[in-house]
């Protein structure tokens, strides 16, 4: 189907009427207009309530009281905000640096050397897509905690009677988050390294430059915009992340903006909605600025990537005997990123109580925790809820974004508006979106605390993700395939049903699986919206950790990881098959 990819963009026909705001809205097709209205209806109240909550007193019943600047004044007079902002910045930059370092090493080995078995690195990406980030963070607390194997080893080596290092600290957060983002960093850096044509480097060498000069002045300069853009992307993702700061930072007294928002609502009694609102608005503003910067940079990076000559091929270096060393590094990476974390969770799920990794525990191992988990109503309930949440969100997002993408790719009236609306949720950090929808549902008591509320918020949150897959999918269908149907005498609806639908089906399934995978992983939105009957797996794991029930937690985590890895494998196969590797 690759031959069908549309390459030439004809000049856009002059619109019949001047394009612009309301006029454009009025002239679009009824379907596009309805879809735009639905999107606005879903998002606008959340934004309004969020901003409102930061400017009003909130009464005990959740309704708004008097207007006030108090929340913002407190924000700036209290040094807590500034301190947490500094923490968040250090934490996010550190994580980005760690992730980029791990990513560069992996991407260079995989894309530019002849290291044996390098294609197996893919397994890391596939499994990491199936592990909820809350479980991942916990696995590192098992590994690096006071009784964890690393501390034990160091204590044995140094003869120290107390743990050598404390993971519940700022640098602990940085290491864990950095490793968690390594697969994403690897994936995006691979494409940067892959798009460097060897001819650029060879041309430099032929001009008389040595290897070092070539690397410095050509290779590095060409890769720099891409690496820089990625650095900012991971910085943003870490800046708005919740799991690691909540599980690692908070117990160690290191707070960031997201954990403050969470604490204001879930820990303080009564919930301080005003403060959470003000923090959320500030976080939102910061992320918008960062995203704008990222957009500028990545556009610049793409410009660099498109300058490739014909007969394009990346240079693969023959490392000779050194390739066994790079192979060793890849194996080590695999263990650090996937092997050890999953292994330790499996260990913890088998032992009655976790007090480190040692031989004595082997005799006590059993599947008792699995038995408990399987028979517990709580697990069954949250498992069912999570599957419903994932399936429902994916089933809403996939067809909806397919239509949006069709309108946008075919340059139909309203297509650009739909594209922008569906991409808008990208600017909301997950926790901010949670706060915003919490406000919406506080004012809609029927939905408050229900699974439906989480499904609605999740669907909005993952619209931009779905949009990327759908857009890529529709882009692969040559316009003439549809035109040929129309000229065969078929009406628009028939064409959509018999030509467009079957052709985008693979992309739709891929999109569905991806949205499913990310929706079931999330903690931030459900943790604020879930009621007693709408718990989901990730939140349950979070709660079990808070209550110290780590055996069951681990058993549950292993079962869940197995299930999701299966889905993830299916997703990866499809995405690869249809060339839809976007992220």
């Amino acid at each position, binding site marked *: *189907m690759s031959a*069908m990819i549309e390459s030439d963009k*004809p*000049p*856009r*026909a*002059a619109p*019949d009427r001047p394009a612009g705001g309301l006029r454009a809205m009025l002239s679009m097709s009824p379907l596009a207009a309805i879809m735009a209205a639905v999107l606005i209806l879903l998002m606008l109240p959340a934004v309004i309530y969020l901003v409102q909550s930061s400017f009003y007193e909130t009464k005990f019943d959740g309704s708004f009281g008097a207007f006030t600047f108090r929340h913002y004044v407190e924000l700036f007079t209290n040094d807590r905000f500034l301190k947490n902002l500094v923490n968040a910045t250090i934490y996010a930059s550190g994580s980005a640096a760690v992730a980029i370092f791990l990513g560069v090493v992996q991407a260079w080995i995989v894309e530019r050397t002849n290291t044996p078995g390098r294609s197996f690195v893919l397994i890391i990406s596939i499994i990491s897509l199936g592990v909820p980030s809350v479980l991942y963070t916990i696995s590192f607390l098992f590994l690096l905690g006071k009784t964890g194997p690393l501390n034990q080893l160091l204590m044995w080596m140094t003869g120290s009677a107390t743990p050598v290092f404390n993971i519940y600290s700022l640098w602990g957060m940085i290491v864990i988050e950095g490793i968690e983002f390594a697969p994403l960093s690897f994936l995006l850096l691979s494409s940067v390294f892959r798009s460097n044509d060897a001819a650029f480097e060879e041309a430099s060498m032929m001009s008389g430059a040595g290897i070092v000069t070539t690397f410095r002045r050509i290779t590095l300069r060409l890769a720099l915009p891409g690496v820089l853009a990625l650095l900012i992307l991971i910085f943003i993702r870490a800046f708005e992340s919740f799991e690691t700061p909540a599980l690692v930072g908070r117990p160690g007294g290191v707070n960031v903006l997201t954990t403050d928002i969470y604490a204001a609502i879930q820990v303080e009694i009564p919930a301080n909605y005003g403060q959470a609102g003000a923090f959320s608005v500030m976080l939102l503003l910061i992320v918008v600025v960062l995203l704008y910067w990222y957009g500028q940079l990545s556009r610049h990076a793409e410009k660099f990537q498109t300058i490739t000559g014909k007969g394009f091929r990346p240079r693969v270096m023959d490392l000779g005997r050194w390739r066994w060393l790079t192979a060793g590094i890849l194996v080590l990476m695999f263990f650090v990123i996937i092997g050890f974390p999953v292994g330790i969770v499996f260990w913890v799920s088998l032992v009655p109580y976790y007090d480190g990794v040692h031989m004595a525990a082997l005799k006590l191992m059993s599947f008792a925790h699995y038995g408990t988990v399987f028979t517990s109503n709580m697990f069954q309930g949250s498992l069912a809820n999570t599957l419903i949440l994932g399936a429902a969100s994916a089933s809403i997002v996939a067809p909806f974004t397919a239509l949006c993408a069709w309108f946008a790719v075919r340059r139909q009236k309203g297509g650009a508006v739909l594209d922008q609306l569906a991409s808008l949720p990208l600017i909301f950090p997950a926790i901010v979106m949670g706060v915003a929808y919490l406000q919406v549902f506080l004012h809609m008591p029927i939905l408050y605390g229900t699974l439906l509320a989480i499904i609605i918020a999740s669907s909005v949150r993952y619209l931009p993700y779905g949009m990327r897959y759908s857009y890529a999918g529709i882009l692969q269908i*040559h316009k*003439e*395939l549809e*035109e*040929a*149907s*129309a*000229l*065969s*005498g*078929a*009406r628009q609806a*028939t064409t959509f049903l*018999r*030509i467009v639908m*079957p*052709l985008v089906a693979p992309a739709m399934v891929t999109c569905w699986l991806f949205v499913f995978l990310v929706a079931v992983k999330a903690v931030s939105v459900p943790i604020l919206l879930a009621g007693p009957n709408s718990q989901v797996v990730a939140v349950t794991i979070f709660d079990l950790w808070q209550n110290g029930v780590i055996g069951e937690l681990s058993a549950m985590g292993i079962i869940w990881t197995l299930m999701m890895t299966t889905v993830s494998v299916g997703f990866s196969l499809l995405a690869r098959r249809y060339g839809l590797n976007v992220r």
Partner: protein
Amino acid sequence: MLEVRDLFKQYTTADGTPGGGVFGATFDIREGELFTLLGPSGCGKTTTLRSIAGLEKPEGGRIALAGTPIYDAGLRLNVPMYERDIGMVFQSYAIWPHMTVFENAAYPLTVGKKRMGGKEMRDKVMGVLDLVGLKAFAERPAPQLSGGQLQRLALARALCREPALLLLDEPLSNLDAQLREQMRAELKRLQKETGVTAIYVTHDQSEALAISDRIAVMKDGLIMQLGAPREIYGRPTSEFVAQFIGRTNLLHGRLDADTPEGATARLETAIGPVVCTFPAAVKASPRMGIVIRPENVAIARAGSPAAGALPAENRFEGRVRSETFLGEIAEYEIDIAGQAILVRARPDTEVRPGDAAVVAFPIAQTLALIED
């Protein structure tokens, strides 16, 4: 059969400046003919074709198919494409990859107004597939076909519905050179066999000359000349057409008096006085174009008996700059008073680079351009 009047459509580029389009095309297409829109990219030929198909909405003019208007700007009428009795072969073939060969060809008979079913449809489809030589491939998945077969299938699909008009949008541009010539002949055969009226869009002048009953040469959204292939080639009316179709020698001279159709006149040019024929009446002009095709120029080595036999009128002496041997023909570039004149002659002509040569332009084929 098809009437197009004052067709107008203007494109705007991404930065808001006016782009290409078609600015007032008018022509009629006769029943059963193969009509070609020929021109360089951006000349408006594809816009014209897509407007007829209904894939593009024009901004002015009108189009009528078999006496029924399908687009009329004045009446605000624009018949949707699925209601127009038109079949189209796309540049990319647009063969649906999720269907078999049979399903692709049968599709037009399963949707829209000309729906049919069962044996009737099967016979019809198999008949058309037989016509294009794809009968044996009917049950193949479409992606397994080769380029030439995809082309045939696209044609079969367009013909299945027996449309009043068949549109072909650069159908051969994706084929390699050898296959292109073969398909060109076959397209013409099938068009004559089925008797379908067809509009063919191409930028390849030799393709247009080989296949068409009539050609409309377009430039910048306007039709420059319309006529049969021999007429377009033999009597170009403008510099653009003369140079776009085949290769030509172009001279300029001053015409002092209005000249009637069929007359001859002597004009002073860069290489000396040239006598040319006027295919139509022309007003006096300070810079009149004169064209002569390279194959119409007679050539001989200076001093040879052949040179003596050349006529005295339109006879010039020059030096051979270069020779290009092309097999069936040889091309010479002759320097006459600093101007390069291209000559195509039999390869056994005894003229070599550096030689002094004599050339002669037959008056009947030395044509004044009646348009700028």
